[in-house]
């Protein structure tokens, strides 16, 4: 609307605006005042109603009246105090008039100004506009904001406001003072329909929810109002609802709020439920039964400890119990029924292993089996965890982590019991590595040690995780035991066989060895377990028994040799006759051929028999020599006989037999005859060698028996001495009876000696009657009523009766008797040896005499002049030939008694026979010159034979004092060690003091001592040199060494010790070391030691491995390797040369 003020000037418009603003303010204040007054009124009414309610509690009429009064008064206050004042608000002019009323001295100022402004145009004609504007301006200046707000800005709000605040404060104080009562009263006042018997609120917990299967499900209801007890209705699936009345639970602290609860027990399926109370019913809630997380399958991967060498093993199981070897690493895969991503395994001692998710339902953990234990498997349930997090935001809902769902939850806990994690307990069984099982299968019982000194031990061994060592352990009754490693079976065991050689075990004959097998497993964690087999015993034969066995074999061999010799004689006869027949007829008949073939086959068989006999003798002797039963010399003798026997089956004879067979197949009569002729001589040699061997064996057997008898006596003395010592040591005579076993053993061995002596006496009766008589005497002392036998009986009786004094007496007597017998037997042995030697020497001397006579006879024959006819010469030659043949027979007889008959002797004698035969034929044919030449040659051979015979005799004479090479080696080794020490001492001497006048006393003493020591070693070397039986390099070396030592001793004695002496000492030591080694090679193997080497062409060793080469060489090799395949072989060498030259140039 067009305002005149706006048009005419700003004063009218400004005033109007100011007034409008003031009017709006006035309107607001009026409304506020009305509201305040209404509220104040309502509150006071409410307070009044409370007083009435308190005065008349539960009076429904009063409460209704009060409610109506409150309602009416509120309505009245709202109308009269709020709406009517607003409806009566004045217009602008009215407001201006109200303002004017505030001006005590200027009446209607604002109203007039307002009207003047409105009428300004109309008054233009009558009044000055300037004057009007002046008035309006003045009024506008008067219309300040404080002034235009004056109406209603005074005391109008203060009273209602104060009243309202006061009433509000009172209400609040009441609510604070009576928090439970005042709201109820208020409810009763404010709600006309409110009744204490009706349910106003029904809240059901937990409402819709999920619970683990099998968990106890509780329902709780919170109510306000109502009487009686709520009813729970529920059903599973589509079945009918069941009802249960809920029980009241302890209150919540509010009088009107009641708690009711009920347990539905363990729930296994989904449920629907509702609560009805006082005509009110809750919503129908759903309960989802969750399957609790649980393991449904286990997969264990066992990785046994490394020492077992076993592969890993996988086991599927429905239970989580673990059973494994201590030290096993277990990888456990747990498969769950529901999705599960996390979990732990709680081991003993608080150790926890986290399970890692392999897939949605499989978790894995790895841990070691250390000891018997258990573990708790905890599986985190993601669904339950979600419930838990959700539940934290729900008031009144309780979620508790179940400790063990299998143990169920406590039934008294209200609300749903929910588990966030499930735990399961399982056992861990740490299997101990059981000791191995080992059993001796064979021998199944105690045995006597076989003569070979070894026997197979068949065993069965097993272990749960593997065998690391297997050994045979033996124990001796009074001595130290030992063990021998056996190859352990692979893997967990098995059956096996071990050839146990007992020859190296130092045990006395007659002793019993207890043995068992011991197996160790491979348990490296808790240490190897040991398993032992049952114990078995093996009895070592006594000397007598061993000898019996060995000599029995020797005797068998000797008889076999005699049989062979007999057959050979028959074969010889056959071959001779056949050969004569062939020569006569000039034809080879079918029968003759078959006969020869048969004889050749038989000859081959005999050769094999000879070889077998030789082997038997060797084995028998080895069994004796390894036990040191016999003297080395005797063993050496037998071995030489054995070698002789082995060489009988000469290669020539074999070749001849092959030639005969071949010639027969070709029906080559000439070759057959030639071969038969060749075989004749070799067969004669064979026969003689067989006879000689058999006789030598027979003789050496006597020596063996004597030697063993001597040792047995010596051993008896030692055994008795040991018993006597024990008798001395035993203080309590009651214990003497414990020695009875030992004494019985002596008795047994004495009985063996008795048998042996009896046997020897019989054998020696013819050849050495006096010796036989002596042996018989000894034998009698061992027989019943003999001195020793009596003493043995007395000793045993004393031991039985525990008579210490008598024991000592008898024991000493026995010891003396055995010692005497031992000495007597040694003497007898020497006597026998001497007798044999004398016999041989006597025969050799006789032979020597014969040979000298023959030589002289040839000399005489040669000195005969031309007057002697050729016929006489032929007769003389014939006579000499026959005499030489007889000498040959004598030599053969001698060779049966000693091995020392040399090849040279035989050869020279044989040569003489041949030459004399040729001489005889030459004389017969009148060729005197040739005959004489042959006689001369025969004479020379005879002379040489005499020399060889004398040398042989000399060897026999010195043989008794000779020592074996084994002993020589030992002595030489000891002397070398002494020389080494001596050299060290000599090097330690202070040479600076030498050559400067008088030496210090200590140095002099040292030199004297060194001289004495050197002399002692030298004497040892001399002695050793004398004892070495044959002229060997060793003997020569020893002589040289002795000479050098003599010079060293002189140097020491003359105090001329200097660098040259030290050098000489070093030289001596080198020679000793060298000699020691030469003994091994030369004298044992009969080979020359210090011989030049023979060049051997052999394949080149492989190239130097590439990693050891220089980079350049390596590159060259690689280049060649890479390119080699492309080149033809013939170019390869050229290519290699090329690269070599390149690399050489590069260098």
């Amino acid at each position, binding site marked *: 609307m067009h305002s005149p003020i706006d048009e005419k000037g700003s004063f009218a418009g400004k005033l109007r605006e100011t007034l409008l603003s003031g009017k709006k303010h006035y309107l607001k204040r009026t409304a506020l005042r009305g509201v305040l007054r209404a509220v104040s009124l309502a509150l006071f009414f409410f307070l009044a109603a409370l007083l009435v309610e308190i005065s008349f509690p539960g009076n429904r009429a009063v409460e209704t009246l009060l409610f109506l009064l409150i309602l009416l008064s509120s309505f009245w206050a709202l109308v009269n105090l709020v709406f009517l004042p607003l409806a009566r608000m004045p217009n602008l002019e009215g407001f201006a008039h109200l303002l004017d009323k505030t001006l005590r001295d200027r009446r209607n100022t604002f109203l007039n100004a307002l009207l003047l402004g409105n009428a300004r145009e109309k008054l233009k004609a009558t009044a000055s506009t300037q004057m009007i504007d002046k008035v309006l301006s003045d009024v506008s200046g008067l219309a300040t904001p404080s002034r235009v707000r004056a109406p209603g800005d005074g005391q109008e709000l203060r009273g209602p406001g104060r009243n309202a605040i006061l009433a509000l404060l009172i209400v609040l104080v009441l609510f604070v003072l009576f928090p439970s009562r005042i709201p109820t009263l208020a409810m009763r006042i404010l709600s006309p329909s409110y009744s204490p018997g009706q349910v106003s609120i029904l809240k059901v917990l937990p409402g819709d929810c999920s619970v683990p299967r099998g968990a106890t499900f509780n329902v709780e209801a919170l109510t306000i109002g109502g009487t009686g007890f709520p009813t729970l209705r529920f059903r599973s699936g589509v079945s009918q609802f069941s009802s249960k009345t809920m029980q009241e639970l302890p209150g919540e602290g509010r009088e009107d709020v009641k708690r009711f609860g009920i347990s539905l027990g363990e729930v296994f399926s989904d449920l629907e439920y509702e609560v009805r109370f006082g005509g009110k019913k809750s919503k129908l809630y759903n309960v989802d039964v969750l399957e609790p997380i649980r393991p449904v399958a286990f997969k264990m991967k066992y990785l046994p400890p490394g020492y077992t060498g076993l592969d890993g093993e996988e086991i599927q199981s429905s239970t989580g119990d673990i059973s494994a070897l201590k030290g096993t690493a277990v990888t456990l895969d747990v498969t769950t029924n529901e999705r599960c991503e996390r979990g732990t395994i709680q081991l003993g001692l608080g150790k926890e292993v986290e399970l890692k998710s392999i897939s949605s339902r499989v978790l894995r953990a790895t841990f070691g089996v250390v000891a018997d234990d258990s573990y708790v498997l905890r599986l985190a349930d993601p669904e339950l965890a979600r419930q838990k997090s959700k539940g934290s935001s729900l008031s009144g809902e309780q979620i508790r982590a179940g400790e063990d769902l299998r143990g169920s939850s406590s039934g008294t806990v209200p609300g749903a019991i929910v588990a966030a994690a499930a735990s399961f307990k399982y056992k861990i069984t740490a299997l101990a590595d059981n000791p191995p099982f080992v059993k001796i299968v064979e021998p199944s019982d105690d045995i006597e040690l076989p003569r070979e000194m070894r026997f197979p031990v068949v065993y069965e061994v097993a272990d749960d995780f593997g065998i690391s060592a297997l050994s045979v352990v033996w124990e001796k009754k009074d001595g130290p035991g030992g063990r021998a490693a056996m190859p352990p079976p692979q893997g967990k065991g098995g059956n096996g066989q071990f050839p146990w050689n007992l020859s190296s075990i130092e045990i006395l004959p007659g002793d019993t060895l207890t043995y068992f097998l011991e197996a160790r497993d491979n348990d490296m964690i808790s240490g190897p377990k040991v398993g032992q087999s049952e114990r078995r015993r093996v009895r070592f034969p006594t000397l007598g028994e061993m000898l019996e066995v060995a000599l029995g074999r020797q005797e068998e061999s000797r008889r076999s040799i005699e049989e062979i010799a007999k057959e050979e004689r028959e074969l010889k006869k056959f071959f001779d006759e056949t050969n004569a027949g062939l020569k006569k007829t000039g034809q080879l008949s079918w029968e003759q051929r078959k006969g020869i073939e048969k004889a050749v086959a038989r000859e081959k068989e005999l050769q094999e028999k000879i070889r077998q006999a030789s082997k038997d003798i060797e084995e028998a002797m080895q069994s004796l020599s390894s036990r040191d039963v016999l003297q080395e010399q005797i063993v050496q003798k037998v071995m030489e006989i054995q070698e002789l026997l082995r060489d009988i089956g000469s290669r020539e004879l074999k070749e001849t037999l092959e030639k005969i067979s071949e010639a027969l197949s070709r029906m080559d009569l000439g070759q057959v005859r030639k071969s038969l002729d060749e075989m004749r001589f070799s067969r004669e040699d064979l026969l003689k060698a067989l006879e000689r061997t058999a006789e030598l064996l027979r003789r050496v057997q006597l020596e063996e028996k004597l030697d063993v008898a001597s040792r047995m006596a010596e051993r008896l003395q030692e055994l008795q001495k040991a018993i006597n010592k024990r008798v001395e040591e035993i203080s309590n005579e009651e214990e003497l009876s414990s020695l009875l076993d030992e004494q019985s053993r002596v008795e047994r061995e004495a009985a063996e000696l008795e048998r042996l002596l009896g046997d020897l006496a019989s054998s020696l009766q013819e050849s050495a009657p006096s010796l036989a008589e002596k042996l018989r005497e000894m034998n009698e002392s061992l027989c019943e009523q003999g001195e020793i036998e009596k003493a043995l009986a007395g000793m045993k009786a004393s031991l039985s009766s525990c008579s210490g004094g008598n024991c000592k007496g008898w024991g000493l007597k026995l010891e003396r008797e055995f010692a005497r017998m031992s000495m007597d037997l040694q003497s007898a042995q020497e006597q026998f040896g001497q007798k044999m030697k004398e016999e041989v020497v006597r025969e050799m001397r006789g032979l020597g005499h014969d040979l000298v006579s023959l030589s002289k006879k040839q000399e005489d024959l040669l000195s005969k002049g031309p007057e002697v006819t050729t016929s006489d010469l032929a007769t003389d030659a014939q006579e000499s030939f026959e005499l030489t043949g007889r000498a040959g027979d004598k030599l053969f007889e001698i060779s049966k008694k000693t091995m020392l008959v040399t090849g040279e002797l035989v050869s020279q004698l044989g040569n003489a026979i041949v030459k004399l035969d040729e001489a005889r034929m030459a004389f017969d044919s009148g060729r005197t010159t040739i005959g004489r030449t042959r006689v001369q040659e025969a004479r020379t051979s005879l002379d040489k034979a005499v020399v060889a015979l004398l040398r042989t005799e000399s060897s026999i004479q010195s043989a008794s004092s000779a020592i074996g090479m084994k002993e020589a080696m030992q002595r030489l080794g000891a002397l070398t060690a002494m020389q*080494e020490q001596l050299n060290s001492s000599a090097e330690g001497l202070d040479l600076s003091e030498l050559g400067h006048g008088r030496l210090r006393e200590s140095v002099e003493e040292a030199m004297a001592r060194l001289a004495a020591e050197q002399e002692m070693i030298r004497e040892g070397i001399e002695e050793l040199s004398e004892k070495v039986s044959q002229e060997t390099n060793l003997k020569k070396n020893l002589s040289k060494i002795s000479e050098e030592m003599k010079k060293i001793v002189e140097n020491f004695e003359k105090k001329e010790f200097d660098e040259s002496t030290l*050098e000489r000492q*070093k*030289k001596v*030591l*080198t020679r000793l*070391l*060298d000699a020691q*080694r030469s003994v091994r*090679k030369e004298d044992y193997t009969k080979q020359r*030691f*210090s*011989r*030049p*080497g*023979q*060049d*051997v*062409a*052999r394949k*080149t*060793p*492989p*190239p*130097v*491995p590439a990693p*050891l*080469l*220089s*980079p*350049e*060489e*390596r590159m060259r090799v690689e280049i060649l390797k890479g390119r080699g395949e492309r080149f033809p072989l013939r170019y390869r060498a050229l290519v290699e040369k090329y690269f070599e030259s390149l690399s*050489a140039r590069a*260098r």
Partner: protein
Amino acid sequence: MRLFCILIPRTVRSVLLILGAVSGLPVSLGSLLHGSGIPLASVSTCWAATKTDAGFIIARLKYKGGGDWYGNATSLRNLMNALRVRGNVVVKADKEATVEIMDGDLFNHPFLFMSGHGTVRFTQKEAERLRSYLLKGGFLFADDDYGMDKTFREEMKRVFPEKDLIELPFNHKIYHSFYDFPNGPPKIHEHDGKPPQGLAIVDKGRVLVFYTYETDIGDGLEDADIHNDPPEKREAALRMAINIVTYALTD
């Protein structure tokens, strides 16, 4: 002289060599091996830088253990004579030097010889020093005089635990450095009837230790009347020994 090689780097050595040649320093290498047929260029440069220590000498290793380290007393003298005459090598003295491993002048001897019949033992310090000596350019020729084999191998294993004695192939330079041995080492003496073997400890292509087993070259080098070996065997031993020395000095 050897220290020169060990302590001074190759490049510096080369410079010194050139300077020496330019300034007219006598190159003793030429005098050492003149006339031997060995190309001078093939000789390790380190040997060329010596002036004051001219002349070659073999050192006999005096070891502990009780064995006769002094055995084959005339062998080295004969070998050095042969080197002088046949190889025209300047030999410093008639008699060999004797050196122990812990001696201060061990490193002054480029070539060690050891032999014997008995036990060889090194202390731990000796083993370490010998190893150092060999790795820094030294050479050890060991000859089993029959009896030293077992302990020598044991001790070598202690000196070089990581290395084995390997048998050198017959085309190896050591068998062709001066004379040709197409079938490997010669057999001088019979010991155990085994074939002769030339074994070595090799490092980066260089032989540090050359060990002759079942050959007895030391005996073959001795005076004729000591072992009564045939002349051809003694000659073979001498030739092989010359080859070994030549190889050690030139490779």
